[in-house]
């Protein structure tokens, strides 16, 4: 059994040396999500500076594709306006990973993005005027 994955060198490289992995002290936004069947778990934490993501980190107990997707995603969103991040798509994450994944593995790459979007939606609700 090799821990290498056959979906391109960039996925392997991000899996072996993930960027922005670990807890983010003082994060204003923290959201965890999981795939109930395979058990992949990802937590995304964000530090905001107004409407811009000043810092983003992730923690994952997940497969190589999911870890690599979370890693490259945090690179994409650091310093980005919330508005742009909210419209980030899976093809953009896959393009950054230079990966052509079979459909069976798309759910693995999608999980970090789903968690990120859930985090932003909940943050927006909390920040909305009149929110408790």
């Amino acid at each position: 059994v090799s821990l290498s994955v056959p979906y391109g060198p960039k996925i392997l490289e991000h899996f072996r040396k993930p960027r922005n992995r670990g807890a983010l002290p003082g994060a204003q936004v923290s959201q965890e999500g999981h795939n109930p069947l395979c058990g992949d778990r990802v937590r995304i934490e964000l530090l905001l500076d107004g409407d811009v993501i000043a810092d983003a980190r992730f923690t994952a107990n997940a497969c190589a594709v999911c870890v690599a997707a979370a890693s490259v995603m945090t690179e994409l969103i650091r310093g980005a306006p919330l508005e742009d991040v909210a419209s980030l798509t899976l093809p953009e994450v896959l393009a950054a990973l230079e990966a052509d994944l079979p459909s069976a593995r798309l759910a693995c790459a999608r999980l970090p993005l789903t968690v990120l979007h859930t985090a932003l939606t909940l943050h927006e609700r909390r920040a909305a005027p009149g929110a408790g």
Partner: protein
Amino acid sequence: MSEAAGLFEALRRTERKAALATLIATQGAPPRRAGARMCVGEGGRILGSVTIGGCVDARVIEESAAVLADGRARRVAMALGDEDAWALGMTCAGTVEVLVEPVDLTRDDDPVVRAQREVAEALRAGHEVIEVAPLDGTPGRLVIHEDGATSGTLGDAALDAAAAARAGEVRGAGRSLVLDVPVGDATHALFLDLQRPPATLVIVGATHVAMPLVELARRVGYHTIVIDGRERFATRERFPEAHELRVGMPSDEVAGLPLGRATAVVLVAHDYKYDLPVLEHVLASEAGYVGLLGSVRRGRAILEHLAEGGVPAERLERVHVPIGLDIGARTPEEIALSVLAQMVAVREGRGGGSLRERKREEAATRAAERPSE
């Protein structure tokens, strides 16, 4: 809970008074460790055992009846005949010493009852504790806590202080001891019973191997914790006997546990997504046993990945992979048995091989060393 506290709790429902028997010393290969307890209620109920049953327990029961009748503690030394020694698994005749003392289960201020309550609380909080009993028949109990604090008394402040000063000796030996403690012109025989919190088994991966492993480990006395990221797997239906079920990020869950030398961590998810991050945490801890389900090849790939990430080689060496003793295990139940056997062997500093072969080798070595006539 301490062994005695558990016995008291079970007896208290039907009995008011009981005799508590404590194995304090053995010569020969002991079938149970010093500190083993048996309780005999005034109504005749018997719980626990100071040996693995048989003649010694029968004699202790007789002594218990006498203790219940006159309310006086006794230190009983029993010489074992060859037949008795053989029955107990000893290689030669020897002696067994047992302290038998009266306990009033209805009184919270009974020194033994109070001490057991304190011991149970300390163990529940994960702390080791030394319970000191006088062996001269006087009532009294001193409890020495991990931080050096004491509670209760042996009836004399100077003796309490002298006993507490010997705690380091017991901890150094790693087992309960009978010590002669001088105070002034007198020497007091005391039993210092080292009691440790139950060993903990942390299982990562709520899989089909984890299920029998929980059942077997619980029987052996482990506190069992099962961790998985999937709530559909880590269910009470699948793990009715687990002490704790935790669903969440496995590496977070493990990082939140005290992983001391009395903790075994077994990774049976057979999935690197859990194995890698969990091992990073576990190998930075003092966990006494670390086992990973998988082949040699799989194990090598995972350990190489961890080495690339900076985990030092001496830590990686702690991982037992493939996991378990070589007993030809194939089914989940058999694999669980081989894992548990290895956990116990590692805890006791044994190789886990055949006892018969070891004894034969020892006998052959002794014969070779014996001077020829």
